[in-house]
């Protein structure tokens, strides 16, 4: 599903340049649930942003579902993102004046899905994250966990090939975190490929594979026995 070879990325800061990713080799197969760990500043978000086509790589190659991701203009990148990827962010990033359902329906709008179908699908995914009765509520009327579940529903709505989550539980307490992880595990059980950036070891152990980043390189990449979040909910 994801195929990365010798990926480099540096940021220019005035005259200096900061070499953040220093040759990453990494591949993810369909249906995997991968945790990316590492200390702050190790380049986790940078890697995820490149995978999400929100940022460009300097050197190396990236293939997503056998499509080489290279020299995309903004329009093309937006279309690929819409088609291939779903995003979940630490700070939820819901649009605050749109209801839960409208937020979930937004990626479908950019896929040019008709109104009715959009609403039906949005409701279906809200139901899947257990928030159907909250469909008409604004984000400000939801708790943090609920917001993140709406965000997950929104990421799922476009039926992406890969779900990218940058610290999805970073802003949640541990109980809510486990609920969100439970949801993510179930989505993964259904066959979705998911990458999660996290700091927290307990969240990482709820994935099936843990990749450790340090100073821009992968220092460890291991499969783990998945801990089911269900037990803690």
């Amino acid at each position, binding site marked *: 599903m994801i195929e990365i070879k010798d990926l480099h990325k540096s940021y220019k800061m005035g005259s200096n340049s900061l070499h953040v990713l220093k040759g990453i080799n990494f591949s993810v197969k369909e249906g995997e649930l991968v945790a990316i760990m590492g200390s702050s500043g190790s380049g986790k978000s940078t890697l995820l*942003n490149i995978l*999400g086509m*929100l*940022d460009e790589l300097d050197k190396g190659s990236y293939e997503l579902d056998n499509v080489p991701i290279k020299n995309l203009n*903004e*329009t093309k990148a*937006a*279309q690929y*993102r*819409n*088609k291939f990827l779903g*995003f979940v*962010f*630490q*700070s939820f*990033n*819901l*649009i605050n*004046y*749109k209801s839960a359902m409208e937020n979930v329906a*937004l*990626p479908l*709008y*950019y*896929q040019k899905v008709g*109104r009715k179908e959009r609403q039906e699908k949005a409701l279906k995914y809200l139901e899947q994250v257990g928030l159907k009765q909250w469909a008409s509520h604004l984000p400000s009327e939801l708790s943090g966990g609920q917001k993140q579940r709406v965000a997950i529903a*929104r990421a799922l709505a*476009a039926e992406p090939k890969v779900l990218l989550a940058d610290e999805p539980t970073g802003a949640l307490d541990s109980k809510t975190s486990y609920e969100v992880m439970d949801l993510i595990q179930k989505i993964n059980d259904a066959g979705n490929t998911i990458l999660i950036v996290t700091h927290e070891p307990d969240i990482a152990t709820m994935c099936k594979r843990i990749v450790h980043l340090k100073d821009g390189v992968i220092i460890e990449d291991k499969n783990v026995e998945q801990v089911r979040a269900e037990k803690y909910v």
Partner: protein
Amino acid sequence: MFDRDIWQEIFHSIKSNKLRTFLTGFSVGWGIFILVMLLASVNGMQNGFYSQFNDDATNSIFIRTGVTSKAYAGFEKERKIQLKNNDVAYIKKSFKKDYEYISARMYRNTSASYKGETGSYQVQAVHPDHQIIEKTIITAGRFINSNDILSGSKVAVIGRKVAEDLFKENSPIGEFVIFNKLPFKVIGIFTDEGDDNAERKIYAPITTYQKIYSNTDNIDGIVLTYNPTYNLTKALEFSTRLENILKRRHKISPEDQSGIRIWNYAEAFSDISSFTSVLSWIGIAVGILILIAGIVGIGNIMVFIIKERTKEIGIRKALGAVPSQIMKLVLLESVFITTLSGFIGLFFATSILALVGPAIQSPAFTNPSVSFTIVLTATIILIVAGLLAGLIPAMKAANIKPIVALRDDK
């Protein structure tokens, strides 16, 4: 453009940002309001000028005489020039194609009395054509006709004020009034939109007055209207020709400006037309300057809004919005706000004009109003203004990098 979802987005964004929408719209609405008011005022001034002139036919020419200021053809200067009946006949004959109506004029002051009421008035002795030339409105009876001219009958058409003075409530038609000891039968009453003083006049047949004043064939002046199909140039050319020929006929030097004076309305009219058109251009220029201020204001607010919505736009892009969609959204919103608020300004301006306009009773300012063309132009200006105002913010929005917008430290 007619994508329902885009409009829903726009309404949503407007609804959830009422204050800034109001602020944005206000500047444009205000600009259009002032533009329309300015143009309407110019229009009112224009109407005022025209209506003052329209009291007389706008194609009239007045011929009066005075004393010569130059010696010429064996005559001394300071010779009094006297027009006579045959001057009228001569013009009729020589300028058949050029004139439409013509009348001689004689001015005499008279005392008038009826059953103990007396007053002093000016009599204008004229031909029947005079009615049309001066646009005299007959409210009762009739004007002087050609029979009166032929028979030299002692009849009079009196102004409304004269009738009020002498007859009070009674009907003057058919009654006899004494002018300088001679009885005249009142055959008609006239009004004049121009002013009250004009209604203190009396019209009588020219032949009658010439008979009374020792059978003279002298006249004091001639009024005529030129062929109404003539444009300004032709009208001016005609009055020059008329002047030259009359000067030759009365042996006046071609350079002498005071022997015969010809006053052509066309000339004054063209001056006023160009004056008011300069005024309306000034109005348009000032209005557009105000609108530009409005556009800059909107542009400013829109840039600010885009800044405020950076994160939202970043989210949309992350979810698959392409730059052109973002641009369309911003542009449409800007055009929508400007057009809507512009129409509100337009609506207020036209309402005020409709309410206040008719109440303005000043001769120099009549019926200030806006034409359909002005409304149409304003609408086009608004849409263009909206596009211009939205353009820079839209490009800014389209260029927002989602990764920058979504960074958490924002």
